[in-house]
């Protein structure tokens, strides 16, 4: 596996392109990409854990829902997530255990507030030898 994720340029908003050898690898990298935009993950210790379970109609909707759930944990509990262990996964459902640390002003650096994960330009495709996804955030 080469690059895990990269930023996408748009004037008003921004997004990420994520890559993965498998679908679960892709979803993990998309999550890391999103949280790297939110905060500097190098100072985040994975001391709090949460279990997540998502079911959707297709893999695009599943990716949006997965990221929405993670964003929700950050918005309400203030947990910056840095580690994502996806357990069982199909194209329509996944279960994961995720880890992070509650935001502390003296320890962590926040970057951008992501308001939401959008459906705009959403893509989850099988590329040669792996998977590729595009997600645009509203920030």
């Amino acid at each position, binding site marked *: 596996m080469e690059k895990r994720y990269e*930023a996408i*340029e*748009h*004037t*008003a*908003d*921004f997004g990420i392109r994520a890559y993965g050898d498998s679908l679960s690898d892709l979803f993990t990298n998309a999550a890391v990409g999103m949280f790297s935009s*939110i905060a500097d993950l190098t100072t985040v210790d994975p001391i709090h854990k949460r279990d997540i379970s998502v079911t959707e109609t297709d893999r695009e*909707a599943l990716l949006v829902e997965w990221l*929405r759930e993670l964003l*929700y944990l*950050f*918005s*309400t509990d*203030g947990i910056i997530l840095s580690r994502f262990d996806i357990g069982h996964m199909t194209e329509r459902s996944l279960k994961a255990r995720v880890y992070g640390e509650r*935001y502390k002003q003296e320890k962590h*650096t*926040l*970057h*951008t*507030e992501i*308001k*939401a*994960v*959008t*459906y*705009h*330009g*959403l893509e989850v495709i099988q590329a040669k030898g792996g998977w590729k996804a595009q997600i*645009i955030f*509203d*920030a």
Partner: protein
Amino acid sequence: MSEFWQGTLEKVDDWRYRIPVTYKAGMKVPGILYADETLLKDIVRDKAPEQVANVACLPGIVRHSLAMPDIHWGYGFCIGGVAATDPEAGGVISPGGVGYDINCGVRLMRSEITLAEIKRRIEPLMNRLFTGIPAGVGSKGDIRLSAREERRLFVEGARWAVNKGFGSGEDLECTEAGGALDDADPSQASDRAYERGARQAGTLGSGNHFLEVQVVDEIYDEDIAREFRIFKDQVTVMIHSGSRGFGYQVCDDYVKSMVRAMAKYNIQLSDKQLACAPIKSPEGAAYLGAMRCAANYAWANRQCLMHRTREAFEAVLGASWQSLGLLLVYDVAHNIAKFETYTVDGRRKKLCVHRKGATRAFGPGNPELPARFQRTGQPVIIPGDMGSHSFLLAGTVKAETETFGSTCHGAGRVLSRSASIRACRGRHIDRELLETKGIIVRATGRSTLAEEAPEAYKDVINVVNVVHNAGISKRIARMRPLGVVKG
């Protein structure tokens, strides 16, 4: 930068360009862009005009899909767009046509203080404002709401804050819609929305939100300025914020439910983010009920923020806000959907007007305006970027006939966030603003400052000149920043 837009644009006059209805299959009405030649060069640098054409495909859209001169690319709908739909003709409501930050808006407070009187106190004032106003990513305030209290706030809007002692009845009269939309339905907001709303009333947020202490440095229309209680060298305060996490959650919940509902109503659109449902459908009604709660939340929020601002002035200047003349000029929403009546094809119709990054601009004589603005038209507040001027305009009758009573909302980005951060690498934007313009900046994060650097935005004066010259609003006064609080 994304590639240039190469679609068809017909010049109507120096301030208007048309995307013909024949440009794209599925367009029900033409698109109209308000711009001059200079702004147009920026506008076609991204796909925003294509989004204007996409919006022209919405079921029940009436007359035009409109774009203001500060238009820029958004997800689904462009930012700076206005679309009116007819509920009696299958017209739809779209959460994406309002935006995530429901009732993001601006309020302008005036004072009896002149620049000379406050000059040496600006730094302590900015420090006091910075400590007194919760700001930054996910900022939480000291106002904690029970679910019961939230429901009350969702229905009462700014009045909820005034009843708590945060302001006066006159503040409500100087707020669009009196600071609350009718028919807010608290039962249509999700548990998650309640959860996110509980701690964020009275917080500024981050991104492009700000609180600015300004001075009036130019008056264009003495007569109307006097009516708005505005004079040269006067200190003013501008507050730009919205419905915070509550609004984001409402939008998020309903984009999702409408993506699912589109098949049911046989609506096909090129972009899922345009997801919509008929106004007269259970999904449409549910969103409208929840959206109004969020709009009211935002008005309560800005009312609380203004109250904190008044407290800061009182603490630093040692006088009551009443004696300092700290009165609200006006508060406008620029991400909202509202029902308003217009004449279409010779008939009066109640339409659902979506304004996403556009400001209402009612002219003199509009029955929705309070007596004090009957002669002048509604005050319209246009914030500039951190280093530049902001403007006070007045609405016009022409806006009501041409743009469903709408005008621009701000400067509009020209650089993406990451491009702006790259351009600011190794620089100290706060120090630059202080040294070159004497503006005191207080911010929670350096990256917000870099994202929001002055060069990331179009010059707001060009945007204001277009709406003024096109006649959809009128220039009244210009304000220059003295100090800024950023999230």
